[in-house]
């Protein structure tokens, strides 16, 4: 089996253009939520914008990652309003608005709106992350926002108000590299996302995987076919992520370290997972399908490719000696 060919097929079957119809459903819901937020918080909010992998050009069609950033003005929740109050207020609003058509739940820094399956059994999920500018009108200058940590997020405790970042800068940094290096960086990021999707509720953020992929490309010679490239990145993650000196600077705020979004145990698990992938594929090529499965929905009919085959070069056989049939 050719591992690179398989990986190419993984990427191909995960292209978002293959899910045009579903993508449109996401776009519509996304617009709806965006408009509702803008309408409800009129005057207190800047333009909500998309930050997920769709915006970063790294999306896969099994998980569109429509993340909506809601940038609030400094005094949107009063002069003494806290980030917690902001988070709770947005949650209350979204809950009331969508409770009949979706599951609305509090997540690490965002609020998830998971719409109930429609008649075609499609489920649309939009994550809304509320953020607030640092000082009045400063957002217009620097795009920086303060986020609220609802539940423990790596080393950030629940209730922490320490996350401050420029999400637009985050998006741009990934988007630029993923677009200019679309045969390497973008493919690897997409493959890592496909892998992440095979694990249930994996603690590593997509942004983490994006950054670490770029860091691997910046620090290692990554060449060869697609499998060679992926392998080098997996090895890089395996070796680096558990080191004490390991950091991943947030492109939106260099004093943020994305390495802090994982606990020590989660880092050990990530490194161990990389090791397992490498070892298992080394042992048996077939295992690549376990970690990087094609999207069966768009898998081209493979039977066209089936052929009678020989094991080596020739056809000549003297049949094996005694065989019993019953």
């Amino acid at each position, binding site marked *: 089996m050719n591992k690179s060919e398989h990986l190419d097929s993984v990427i191909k079957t995960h292209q978002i253009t293959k899910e045009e119809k579903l993508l449109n459903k996401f776009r519509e819901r996304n617009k709806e939520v965006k408009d509702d937020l803008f309408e409800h918080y009129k005057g207190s909010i800047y333009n909500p914008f998309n930050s997920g992998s769709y915006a970063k050009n790294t999306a896969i069609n099994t998980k569109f990652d429509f993340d909506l950033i809601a940038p609030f003005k400094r005094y949107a929740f009063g002069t003494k309003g806290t980030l917690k109050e902001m988070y709770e207020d947005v949650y209350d609003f979204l809950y009331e608005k969508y409770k009949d058509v979706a599951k609305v739940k509090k997540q690490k820094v965002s609020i998830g709106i998971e719409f109930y399956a429609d008649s075609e059994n499609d489920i649309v999920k939009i994550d809304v992350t509320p953020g607030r500018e640092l000082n009045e009108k400063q957002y217009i200058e620097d795009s920086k926002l303060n986020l609220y940590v609802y539940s423990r997020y790596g080393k950030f405790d629940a209730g922490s108000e320490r996350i401050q970042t420029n999400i637009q800068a985050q998006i741009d940094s990934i988007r630029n590299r993923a677009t200019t290096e679309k045969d390497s960086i973008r493919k690897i990021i997409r493959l890592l996302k496909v892998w992440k999707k095979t694990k*249930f509720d994996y603690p590593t953020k997509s942004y983490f995987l994006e950054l670490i992929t770029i860091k691997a490309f910046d620090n290692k010679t990554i060449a060869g076919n697609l499998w060679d490239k992926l392998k080098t990145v997996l090895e890089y993650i395996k070796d680096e992520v558990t080191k004490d000196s390991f950091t991943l600077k947030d492109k939106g705020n260099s004093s943020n370290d994305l390495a802090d979004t994982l606990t020590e145990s989660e880092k050990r*698990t990530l490194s*161990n*997972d990389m090791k*397992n992938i490498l*070892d298992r594929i080394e042992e048996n090529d*077939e295992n690549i399908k376990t970690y990087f499965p094609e999207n069966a929905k768009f898998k081209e009919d493979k039977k066209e490719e089936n052929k009678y085959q020989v094991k080596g070069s020739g056809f000549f056989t003297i049949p094996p000696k005694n065989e019993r049939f019953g």
Partner: protein
Amino acid sequence: MEDRLHKIIGYVSELKDVSIVDTFEITNDLDIKGAISIKLPDNQESLIFEVRILPEYPLKTGNSESITFINIGLLKYKHIMKSGSICIHTSHCTDLRKKIEIDFNSLKRWIWEYYINGKEDKHYEHLILNPSPIKTAYYSYLFTEVSHSFNKGDFGYFEYSLMSEGSYYGNKIYNNVVQEFKTKYQKSIIQCQWGIQIKSLRRVSSNHGIYIYIETPPANFEKFAFETWKELEPLISQDFLKFLYDFEVSNKNNRGVNIPLLLGYKITDNEIHWQTANLEIGNFPIYHKKENQKYIGYFDDRNIEWGITKNCSYKYFFGRGKMEDKISQGRILIIGVGAIGSMVATTLARGGCTKIDVVDFDVKEPENVCRAEYSFLTGINDKVTDISNYLHSISPFIDVKIIQKGGLFNSILKIQDWEKFEIQIHETEKKEFFNQYDLIFDCSTDNDLMFVLNQLELHNLISMAITNKAKSLVCSTEIKSYDWVINQFEKILDNDIEDLHYPTGCWSPTFKASYNDISVLVQYALKHINLRLSQDISLRNFVVETNTDNELNIKLKEF
């Protein structure tokens, strides 16, 4: 003989700081006996030891050293027997000269640590005593710590149950478990911390055990247990002597009945040990005098018949090794207790788990015994009943709950076709049931069940199954692993399904493998799970593969 004697004398004389002060000679028992003196480091003082070397030397005799160093004047120091012989523990060595050197060094180490530096060991050494049989049988009393603080002089009754009879160095022994401490007015104070099965053993009639908390050990030098009752007198009150007197009087019809007396004393700041001594009704070792119309009691100088006690508290019971707290302190469900499930169950029970629920609707038949944790003696028996009894026989702390037929398992669990409004209700019910457990082991090898559990997205589910002839064990630990497991069985592993064992009769065939084949895989898998939990690394699906082309090779492949 003479030659050996001369060699020994020669070797001993060569040793530094050692001199022979009484000539070594052969005794009538063919032992070699003599005395030596060892110079202490400060050069001021020497210690003299009588040395006795048995004919087996340099090999051990039975389980004991065949050389003894005796100095009766050193009894107050640690690690010395009542006979004055020093407890040395040395290494195996078959060369006479080297062995002598090792053993004398060991003696010097004892002198340095305990005689010169007065070292106090961290761990407690129990009293040195020889339990005596009552008539011809021994009695043991097993207890746990209790969450009650006794005050010096507290006394009353204790209740106990006879657990089993057995043999003790060739004599009969009755093993009892202490159940409960009560006041002298029979009011309950506290129960021992046993599991439900031990607690429910039938109790020996309620006033047939007496305890007193004396706080300090009934011993000389804190280690040699008193020999006579008289020695105990300073540690007990008149109240207690009067209580014994009254007890014996009011039980005079039970003449000859033995009453265990538990003597409690402190061994650390927060730990009590209980030592038992036997009292026989009609023959209590007490007498009294009336002084000014007042009862004054005494113990007489008869010998104390010490019995056997053991602190079996959880921390001691599992003191030699247990599994990770995440397993042992968790609430466990085992689905399916066939070959694999029963091995998981007993391993967890021995690993310190105390809360294990089991579910299985199958019946144990004699042919299950050869490769599962069952006994032939219990005959045909529901597997859950059988395994529950077996687990209770392993651990006194375990509470096994049997998930009854008719509950969730064979009503709603496998039904797929619900009306839309029912789906949520049933899913919540199922999730609530499974989420009460910290770990669920699905050892049912029931693919339908695996499919259903997969849908529930349980984070605490571990499923284990074995391919034919126990070539591999497939263990899934991740959420939504159904496809992975099926793929392993159908595509990846060499699962020979033609050569199965077909029992006579009309039921499904089972795979072929012996107890040894299966348990080596199950233990390997459990050890891996235990390891990952201790490393705080998330559990991943894995396969344990064996290769028997040559010597046995076992490889664990984590996915």
